[in-house]
């Protein structure tokens, strides 16, 4: 069998045994629900409710603020209590709609959808857009934008990203085991948009039962195939899952569509299925609450907007005071300094660790061992990039292609000198991209001024 993988990457302790066999349990929120208007990449959504308005679950409360943006829906019934800044998992204060839960969980009636076979491509994309679906793997890119490439006929593969390479996370795994038909249904919805595409459900080989189950369920589907990917972090990275499945490599300036691919996360495909076949908006997501500080690690089906504190209570609370709590997985998640934050569309996990290893390690001099180079899935030289980043040396940083970094953190993980490589490169990458944009804009303005000047002379 061909080996589906990429070069580089790491094998951290995966911690999935804590929660992988715990079935998904519904969580009913008790307290207020908080809906930040920015839960996605792109323009913030615009609130369309006022303080004091009554809302029901499934009712739109904020509408997309542009093409690259997403609608936001209430997930419980209640009253809009405030529209104010609230802390979000990444640490920022973001304008949020705060709904006081009336405990009735009344839901709106959804307009019935036509069977998938009778729906046009435009109707499918419109339903996805209406439902406010964004990439639920973590990036939060609006899905309807992804589904609208320039040339739909040039798409050869639709890839379901079910790698779940982040340690500790089991939310996608539980989805696959408990609702495989919804995942396959979502895949069919997307395949309907791309006539020439083959569907690939890509799963890391540390989940043999999920591979077996989905292979069995798709054996009569001529357009869908299940690929077993070699287990390795960051296999779930969009660029690297495309490479593993198709051997096509894209860089930071390209989109998956440039390689003839559309990639969607497992939970996103489930949301697409619900939106297209039932017109149900994105309201729920699966969240793994885990870590050695949690009494009863579990997977929950959570209404977006639920406070993280409630999830910790649902998981039996802490067995010990955690030193670090992370929204997401240990490799790419955000550490929280305050637990009073809501579950958003992109919250995949809540990881509570008794011991914060990072605070105990001591940084020392780079010995040029090259472990970061061997681990880098982008084939960069993280140790040198980090040094140039610390010196703010744009020229050298760009010469070594610093902007190609995917911020996976593999370099920092393997570094024996415990340098904060990814952090340095990430910060510099933002500056470098900003600088390049500013320079491009200045050059453009100059060119325009020059051509306008010429026009004036004539």
């Amino acid at each position, binding site marked *: 069998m061909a080996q589906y993988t*990429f070069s580089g990457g*790491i094998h*951290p302790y995966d911690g999935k045994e804590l929660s992988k066999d715990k079935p998904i349990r519904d969580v009913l929120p008790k307290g207020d629900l908080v809906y930040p208007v920015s839960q996605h990449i792109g323009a913030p959504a615009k609130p369309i409710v006022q303080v004091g308005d009554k809302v029901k679950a499934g009712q739109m409360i904020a509408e997309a603020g542009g093409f690259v943006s997403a609608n936001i829906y209430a997930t419980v019934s209640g009253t809009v209590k405030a529209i104010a800044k609230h802390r979000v998992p990444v*640490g920022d204060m973001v304008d949020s709609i705060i709904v006081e839960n009336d405990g009735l969980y009344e839901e709106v009636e959804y307009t019935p959808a036509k069977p998938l076979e009778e729906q046009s491509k435009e109707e499918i994309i419109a339903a996805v857009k209406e439902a406010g679906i964004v990439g639920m793997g973590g990036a939060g890119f609006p899905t309807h934008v992804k589904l609208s490439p320039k040339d739909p006929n040039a798409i050869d593969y639709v890839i379901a990203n079910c790698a779940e390479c982040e*340690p500790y996370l089991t939310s996608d795994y539980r989805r696959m085991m408990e609702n495989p038909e919804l995942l396959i249904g979502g895949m069919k919805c997307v395949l309907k948009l791309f006539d020439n595409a083959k569907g690939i459900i890509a799963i890391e080989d540390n989940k043999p039962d999920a591979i077996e189950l989905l292979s069995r369920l798709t054996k009569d589907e001529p357009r869908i195939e299940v690929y077993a990917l070699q287990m390795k972090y960051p296999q779930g990275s969009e*660029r*690297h899952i495309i*490479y593993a499945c198709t*051997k096509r*490599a*894209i*860089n930071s300036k*390209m989109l998956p569509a*440039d390689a003839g691919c559309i990639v969607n996360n497992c939970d996103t495909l489930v949301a697409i299925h619900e939106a297209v076949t039932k017109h149900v908006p994105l309201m729920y997501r699966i969240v793994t609450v885990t870590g050695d500080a949690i009494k009863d690690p579990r997977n929950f089906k959570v209404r977006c907007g639920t406070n993280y504190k409630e999830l910790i209570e649902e998981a039996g609370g802490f067995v010990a005071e955690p*030193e*670090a*709590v*992370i929204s997401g997985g*240990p*490799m*790419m*998640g955000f*550490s*929280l*300094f*305050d637990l009073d934050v809501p579950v958003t569309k992109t919250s995949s996990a809540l*990881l509570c*660790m008794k011991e*914060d*290893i*990072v*605070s105990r*390690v001591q940084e*020392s*001099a*780079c*010995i*040029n061992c*090259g472990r970061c*180079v061997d681990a880098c*899935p982008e*084939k960069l*030289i993280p*140790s040198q990039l980090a040094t140039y980043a610390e010196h703010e040396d744009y020229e050298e940083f760009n010469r*070594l*292609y610093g902007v*190609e970094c995917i*911020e996976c*953190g*593999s370099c*920092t*993980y*393997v*570094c*024996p*000198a*415990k340098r904060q490589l*990814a*952090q340095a490169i*990430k910060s510099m990458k933002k500056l470098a991209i900003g600088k390049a944009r500013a320079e491009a804009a200045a050059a453009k303005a100059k060119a325009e001024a020059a051509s306008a000047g010429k026009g004036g002379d004539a």
Partner: protein
Amino acid sequence: MAEENKNMLNVSSNPHVRDSITTQKIMVYVIIALLPATAFGIWHFGAYTIAVILTTVISSVIFEYLYEKLMKLPITISDGSAALTGLLLALNLPPRIELWVCVIGSFVAIVVVKQLFGGLGQNFMNPALGARCFLLIAYAGKMTNFAYDSFTGPTLLAQLKEHANVNTFNMVIGNEMGTIGEVSVIAIVIGACFLILMGVIDLRIPASYIISFTLFIILFGGQGMNAYYVTAHLAGGGLMLGAFFMATDYVTSPITTKGKIIFGVFCGIMTGVFRVFASGAEGVSYAIILGNLLVPLIERWAPLRHFGYVDPKKGGGKA
């Protein structure tokens, strides 16, 4: 504000987990990997070598401590790098070298080659080899006198150069004259296997070094595909110690795969040039030091191809 901070959780940038490997562990692994060659050297050359080894190791650590103390730098002797440099230096010295020469060697290695250029990670040549080459020039007679007990005369490698028949079996097991750590190929390879298993080194540098050296000897050694002659060259002198333990020094070798292979091939060819065309019989130390000096250039030359690199001339993605 202070009250508020107390309830806050620890925050840091991702990732939030770390591999258990540390610089200190790497140094300890390399020291362990050198023990077979060290033990063989002591057994083969006698108890005096223990004094040589202890002198270089202890004086290296003391020089590092004193320099850092004097310059008000953080004391880093616990990372094990100074002790490792001391051990490597001892393994590159003749078995009957005077102890004061050892102390001078340690001084050159730690203070001149390593600390004056910024300490761990900043030296541009392998400290132990730098010190060895300094001593070779400063005390040529002492450094090339490999006599011990009743054994005197030229080394097997020097005899090979004079077209004498040498016993390659003795060269492989280490029953010959040479520096303390270089004589036994078997002991060195056992240590190298341990390092490879522990993930400290890999074969990119040693293999490109040894293969290019072998090809050079076949092409220019004057004996063609003479297996006996090639084996004698591979097993003789410091080639194995150099290829597995000196050329693979992290700080003074390139970081990328392409760079490592260019570096290995360069060292292999230069070793061949020194052994075949120069007046002396040996050239591993000089070859590796020359390679060390070229590392910044190699890293500039070796083209970097990131994931998804698009050749500006051709277009189209490529891994």
